[in-house]
């Protein structure tokens, strides 16, 4: 059961059932891994990142956000041939910051969600670049492509978060 309460800053705090907490990220990973086979352009989206952002902002609990980001990131790493920890570290930090911001600012309206997702996508990619460099596997950062991908993810997030809002259950 998801629950809703008010944080110290006066912002609504949501919780989710165990089933939602487990199945939604898993489904996001599965869709992300399957759809690019038929729709190659879908690879520009990062559904696991959007899931991390949604849960972190909704829960507004930095510890929960950090753990959520870490788990989803590590699972995403496990599907690649690259060392585990690259996506993991990037999403851990994103989960922490998103939930910290979510605890102070209301990010429920579409406009703020668009800006938030756009910014966090770029932050996530930069953190990933840093992690790749740490692992001695640097790759070039393509600004044009990343900005376009950030915008695409932000637009998808606006629609997706509205759908996921239905999973929030009140006390």
């Amino acid at each position: 059961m998801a629950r809703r309460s008010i944080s110290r800053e006066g912002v609504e705090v949501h919780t989710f059932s165990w089933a939602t907490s487990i199945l939604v990220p898993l489904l996001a990973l599965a869709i992300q891994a399957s759809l690019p086979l038929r729709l190659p352009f879908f690879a520009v989206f990062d559904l696991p990142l959007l899931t991390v952002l949604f849960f972190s902002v909704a829960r507004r609990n930095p510890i929960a956000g950090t753990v959520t980001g870490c788990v989803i990131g590590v699972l995403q790493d496990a599907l690649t041939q690259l060392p585990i920890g690259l996506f993991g570290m990037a999403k851990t930090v994103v989960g922490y910051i998103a939930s910290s911001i979510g605890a102070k600012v209301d990010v429920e309206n579409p406009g703020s969600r668009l800006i938030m997702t756009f910014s966090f996508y770029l932050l996530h990619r930069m953190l990933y670049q840093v992690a790749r460099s740490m692992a001695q596997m640097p790759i070039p950062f393509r600004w044009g492509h990343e900005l376009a991908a950030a915008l695409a993810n932000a637009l998808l997030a606006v629609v997706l978060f509205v759908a996921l809002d239905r999973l929030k259950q009140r006390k």
Partner: protein
Amino acid sequence: MENFFTRYRKETVLVVLLFVQMIALATQVKVRVKNTDPMQGPTVTQEGGTRLLRVWAVAMVSPFQKAAVNTGVAVRGLWHSYIDLRGMRRDNDLLQEEVNRLRMEQVRMHEDAEQGRRLQALLGFKQQFPSKTVAAEVIGTSGTELSRVVYVNRGRRDGLEPGMAVITPDGIVGKVTRADRTTSQILLINDPTSGAGVMLERLRLNGILKGTTAGYPEILYVMADEKIQTGDRVLTTGGDRVFPKGMLVGTVESVMPDRERDPFLAIKVRPAVNLSRLEEVLVITEVVERTPYATDSTSGPMKAADMLAQRLPSVPKKELTADPTKPETPVLGIAATPAKTPGKTTGPATSITDPANKKTAVAPASQPMQASPKAAKAPINKIAATIVVKTAGNAKANQVTTPAKKPTALKPTAPNPTDTPKETPR
């Protein structure tokens, strides 16, 4: 101290999680660097203690993927059954035209192949042939552009192992990087961490094929003064010990100076296979290395003496391989006569003339023909051999005189199913 952790609990959790992942990353990278062969990429690397985690992740996701793929296949099958019936007559006509064209082409290719095989056998050339493949269906991807891998529904249970080459009838796809029990991970050739030894077919230039973050493969380490053209075909060299030699990789799409490696070129390659829309692939599970098998001279031009022998009933047919003490009947249409002195070949130089190109390749007499180890142990009967080679599209026979060893050395170690069966020479 307790107050510190209570006060900075969330920061502590963040630091601990990051630290653990950093340690894990460092461990994996250390193992990778230690075990990585530059040509093999990450294929031969160990995965430290992360293998179990990867298996779990794939096991959690693959049921969704398999279900999605199976549903898609079923729906497409129904739809295609309807569509196929509608356009069957038109397709049939088109296919018939295609068959006729291919038949004509086959005749020409057959002649080329025969000539190539004769020359390869003459030089003791060893070639790798994929002898066993496993068909696999692509069920998923890594889900990110930053890692170009796909998953297939075949694993260790089906004989797949890391390092095996993955192809389609159009060209190469990648190689197996991880094989679990029922699924395997395939690293595509357009991933930045992949690598393959390739060659430009027209110029016979070797280079290394690497993927890029933009998703296309490029050839590195080719000097800037080479005259490479757009559309040049790119083949595998076999030097990476993953892909058999001569498999199509793709064609050159563009050539530009490599900004990171100054005297070299960066050659963008258009893969022969559409790597973003893979459905079924073949995994080469077994490769055999053998000398190409050439058919006898019945496919080549008949000599005047043979024609005369057929027309004149008084002239008996030649006795072939009746006596085991005599040299066996050579392949390649070699007319053999025993040599006087055994041991190392000291006869005249080998020359092969191609009238189409008007070029003559001469091998010095000091370079004996390559013989198989089995043949090398046998007593050598030196033979002077005459080889009749027929070039494609030119009926003129070229006389090639060579100091041959025992002709059995030219026989293959195993029959090649793609070759035509050997016939008894007349």
